[in-house]
């Protein structure tokens, strides 16, 4: 992840080459950052994955589970960002005939966010339907991490195949 961590500064260095000036990780990058402005990066670390689920039984992936969806947000230190979601109500089987769907739901604690560190255990739970506002970390760690889980309820007569949908997360710089 170190490449992602420094990608913002790297971009600035790439875009504003300064002949005759050292391009090392020092003051040069900071000067360039002032010229262009700081970067903002939202990176999807993992998608929400339920894997194989039994028919007729609700399956939940908690935001703390390995299958949870996860994002990393990098930007200005201590900056506020709002986090909102567009969530699907049903998933579609992309292998079966059209019309084969599966309900999916999200609860009051299906999402979590954490300032600065990638540690879901210590993260703050929130309702992804309502969204929330978070704050990026301090200068040494200007990150925010975000996780989401959910529950699928396949019917007993669910057709086999791959069910999928899209979660849209919106990060607004405030």
């Amino acid at each position, binding site marked *: 992840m170190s490449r992602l961590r420094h990608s913002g500064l790297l971009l600035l260095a790439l875009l504003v080459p300064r002949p005759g000036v050292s391009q090392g990780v020092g003051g040069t990058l900071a000067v360039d950052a002032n010229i262009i402005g700081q970067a903002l990066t939202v990176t999807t670390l993992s998608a929400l994955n339920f894997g194989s689920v039994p028919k007729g039984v609700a399956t939940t992936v908690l935001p703390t589970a390995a299958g949870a969806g996860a994002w990393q947000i990098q930007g200005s230190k201590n900056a506020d960002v709002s986090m909102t979601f567009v969530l699907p109500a049903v998933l579609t089987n992309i292998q079966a005939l059209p019309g084969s769907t599966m309900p999916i739901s999200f609860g009051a604690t299906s999402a979590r966010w954490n300032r600065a560190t990638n540690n879901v255990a210590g993260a703050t739970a929130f309702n992804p339907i309502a969204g929330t*506002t978070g704050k990026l970390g301090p200068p040494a760690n200007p990150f925010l991490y975000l996780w989401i889980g959910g529950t699928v309820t396949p019917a007993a007569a669910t057709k086999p195949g791959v069910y999928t949908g899209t979660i849209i997360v919106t990060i607004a710089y405030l």
Partner: protein
Amino acid sequence: MKAAGLALVLLSGATRLAAQGVVIAPHAVFIDARTRSGAVLLYNPNTDPVEVAVSFFFGYPATDSAGRIVVDSIRHPDSTSVSAAAWIQAFPRRLTVPPLERQTVRLLATPPPGLADGEYWARLVISAKGGQLPVTGVADTARVKVGLTLEVRTIIGVYYRKGAVHTGVALSRLRTAVVGDSLAVWARVTQQGNAAYIGTAHAVLTDSTGRTLSEMKAPIGVYYTMEPRYALAIGALAPGRYRLRFDLSTGREDLAPELVLPSPPVRDSVEVRVP
């Protein structure tokens, strides 16, 4: 991506999702009426291409009843609003950023004739979508597998400035409350002038000798009137009287100084009593 393509990806046994994302710079775009143009740079630091779509809407940060800052989106701004969303265009609006490459999105403003001096706002939405589904496993048509793809929309501010622009902020109703191990701080802030107040909020808690016990700094943008809530970590504060000093200034470390409209700092303070 077409369904057949998705199925191919799934059946090929993709085991994990590579990190997907795009670097966006700057995080705020200021357009001068003399040039009427701006640019946003996108960089893909990952190994998969990223599909990007760009759009605008009119909105601005405001606070909800709990003091959280949220973006108020105005779907149908009226003629008196300072919306630039209808007359700023992005070129291109759809693009694919290849791995480890960068692309530039140009912004072009075509304001209506006779536009009054001042600052006009829009929010730029950058939607980024990778091309891989997360479902694992080999082809097995007897099982039910579930996986969701994640799409990211990043929203940044766009500011169009015409003629003489000036800003300021009025500060009132500073108040506090001890909540657990934090000191909650609220203040009512109202934008002045014809441009958004872009600055920094700074709060300091001191004891009776003037010693700093806790401090916080946060970027702030005031577009109309808002009442943000801040929290200072105070731990187990001993009973007594303290003072909370709160100030707003237009210094911003994340923006070039020439982009930030200067305005005199405003300050207030309030006594904090811990029983």
